[in-house]
């Protein structure tokens, strides 16, 4: 074997070892770390799910892919934080934020959506891109550009951590109360949305509009009202997501970029499935964190930046509608 071949062999074996052997040794060596990483992945996944849920609610009921969802999350979070900052009690700040998001939904329906009824989906998508720019500029005018700390004490969000399984492992596993709060409250919110969509008259109307808005109009379902309802619902999800995302670092406009990480979640879970958004978020979140921790040595720093999109691309190849999305069959 000459020098070049030997070099190639050693690089290849190092790469394959780093891909298929080393991570699994690390799993066994530090099971506490594995549990820690998986729990962090779950936490990140829940956050992605919350943003993805906002997309799904609007897409499911109106067929609009809302590019402005990320900035809506920021806007909603900053509304709550800013109101608390000026002395409004937390509960009223949240109620007022709901009113603000509702008013925004009415404004969007009147100014952006109503003039575009029956236009192709791509036109509505472009309109939401414009909306994202507007909300970013308008938001910075109102709230200022500085990120704001989320007053978690005022909101009653616990910020400590539990240390568990310390007797079994080298180091205890840390469970963050913030993550648990997101998990429990997020779960309740998802359950409420599923119930609303499936068990209420308005929910059924939403689904009818999603299937065929012309047919829905012909049976008396008021399209403008339905759009206001879904955008308000998405605004509610945005309030929750904005506060919980912000609580992890700060509520600021750079969070809008993180929100775009919900895209692979949507591709994986399907654009129309609420459970898909949840499961997709968890799969992407856990995979990202595991890859970043155990495979960064061979795949490079920042694996978590792109691994979700790779998973989404693979899913697109085999199941374009996502794991839970509705199969689209169109007559030609």
């Amino acid at each position, binding site marked *: 074997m000459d020098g070049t071949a030997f070099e190639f062999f050693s690089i290849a074996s190092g790469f394959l070892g780093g891909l298929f052997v080393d991570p699994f040794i690390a799993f066994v060596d530090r099971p506490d770390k594995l549990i820690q990483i998986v729990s962090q992945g779950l936490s990140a996944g829940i956050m992605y799910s919350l943003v993805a849920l906002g997309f799904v609610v609007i897409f499911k009921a109106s067929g609009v892919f809302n590019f402005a969802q990320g900035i809506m999350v920021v806007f909603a979070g900053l509304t709550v934080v800013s109101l608390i900052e000026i002395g409004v009690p937390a509960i009223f700040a949240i109620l007022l934020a709901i009113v603000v998001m509702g008013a925004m939904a009415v404004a969007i329906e009147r100014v952006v959506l109503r003039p575009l009824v029956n236009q192709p989906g791509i036109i509505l998508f472009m309109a939401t891109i414009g909306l994202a720019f507007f909300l970013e500029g308008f938001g910075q005018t109102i709230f200022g550009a500085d990120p704001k700390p989320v007053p978690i004490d005022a909101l009653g969000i616990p910020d400590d951590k539990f240390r568990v399984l310390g007797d079994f492992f080298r180091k205890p596993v840390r469970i963050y109360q913030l993550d648990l709060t997101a998990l429990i409250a997020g779960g309740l919110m998802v359950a409420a949305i599923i119930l609303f969509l499936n068990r209420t008259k308005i929910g059924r109307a939403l689904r009818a509009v999603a299937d065929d808005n012309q047919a829905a109009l012909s049976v008396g379902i008021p399209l403008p009202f339905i759009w206001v309802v879904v955008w308000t619902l998405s605004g509610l999800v945005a309030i929750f997501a904005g506060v919980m995302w912000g609580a992890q670092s700060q509520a*600021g406009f750079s969070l809008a970029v993180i929100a775009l990480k919900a895209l692979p979640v949507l591709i994986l879970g399907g654009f129309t499935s609420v459970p898909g958004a949840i499961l997709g978020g968890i799969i992407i979140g856990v995979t990202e964190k595991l890859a970043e921790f155990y495979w960064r040595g061979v795949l490079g*720093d920042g694996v978590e930046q792109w691994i979700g999109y790779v998973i989404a691309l693979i899913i697109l190849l085999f199941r374009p509608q996502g794991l839970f999305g509705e199969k689209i069959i169109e007559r030609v």
Partner: protein
Amino acid sequence: MTVKRFTLAAAVAAVAGTTALGGFLTTAHAEDGIYVPLLTYRTGAFADSGTPIANGMSDYFALLNKRDGGINGVKLVVEECETGYKTDVGVECYERTKTKGAVVYNPYSTGITNAIIPKTNGDKIPVLSMGYGLTPAADGNVFPWVFNLPTTYWSQASVFVKYVGDQEGGLDKLKGKTIGLIHLDHPYGKEPIPTLEALAETHGFDFVTYPVPPKTMQDQRSTWEKIDSDEPDWLFMWGWGAMNPTAVKGAVDVDFPMDRFIGVWWSGNESDVRDAGKKATGYLAGDFHGVGDGWPVFDALREHVIGKDGSQTPESMVGETLYNRGLFNAVVVGEAIRTAMGKYGDRPITGEEMRWGLENIVLDKARLDALGLAGFTNPINVTCADHEGSHPVYLKKWDGDKWEKSTDWIEPMKDVVRPLIEEEAAKIAAERGLATNACSS
């Protein structure tokens, strides 16, 4: 389209356009006085760091104009160009303002600084990158138009290692220890790596890096798990903007010992630690100027500028680290202009004259006293060859509520840093075909 809808569309377009297009400028020119463009970022992900700096700079220039009628009777014409901390927008700001008679640029971004440095030889306008930018630019023989006083990233990195050595019982005790660097994955964040690698080799410690991508700097959990797993003995941070408070929280989350966590002077603002509050007690950061408002210059600012027309500074920001840094930057610009006027006369100066002013600036104890800034910084004495000018750094400690000075001024390892600067500057000169004898020509 109805008139109503047209009006609404125009309003929406105007607001969206204001956001999308950086660099809004009014018309101002050197014939109105001395033109000082400020490349600032009051918007975007780094606005929480950029805003206090912009306020500190513009408030001090406003003070000079309002209290003194400018410098030696010549008004300062200050104009901000919003970069959003984006290199391409910053370069656009530079190009749009340089023909108006700009005397100096303060980019406040290593990316923008590095992008405009190649233009300075032709444009003959100095760049003052105070405590940031390209470290080898401290070699004035190769970079006659770039000034990075009062000290550089490499000097600071060596100060950190010196401090760690001192805490461990001597630099020889660093052998076998591990020092980590969590940094923004950006030209700025990578700046100290060559020095730390060189020092790792010299002193036998392991050096590990933890890059944080700018786009997801508010989601650092994986990075902190890695740090928790590696258990470095000491951790340095080169962060900026929202990366800083997220990192401090990350350290708290994984129970990293805060008194072994040292941030660059850009990771030592109050907003970086305020969220973590008491939990961040013990966190250290480098600095090269005072924090707080206990100097007479702040009384003058309150009397003439703050709370008056034109100032965007809330009272709570006065005396904070980055506000003071912006103010200090403006003091250096003002004193360089004053120095240049001493030679060229009391009139609007040119970029070339400003370079002479920066090279001959003397900010000694007496001058700092006269400016109402006694003890605010270590005296600065720039030379043609040494654009770093001062060098020492001190460390401050977060006590859970405010910063407290934790060490005296610490001299960097000049015997290591200066040869590295000259070596790297010579390498860049060879690559770009730059002269290496600006001070002897």
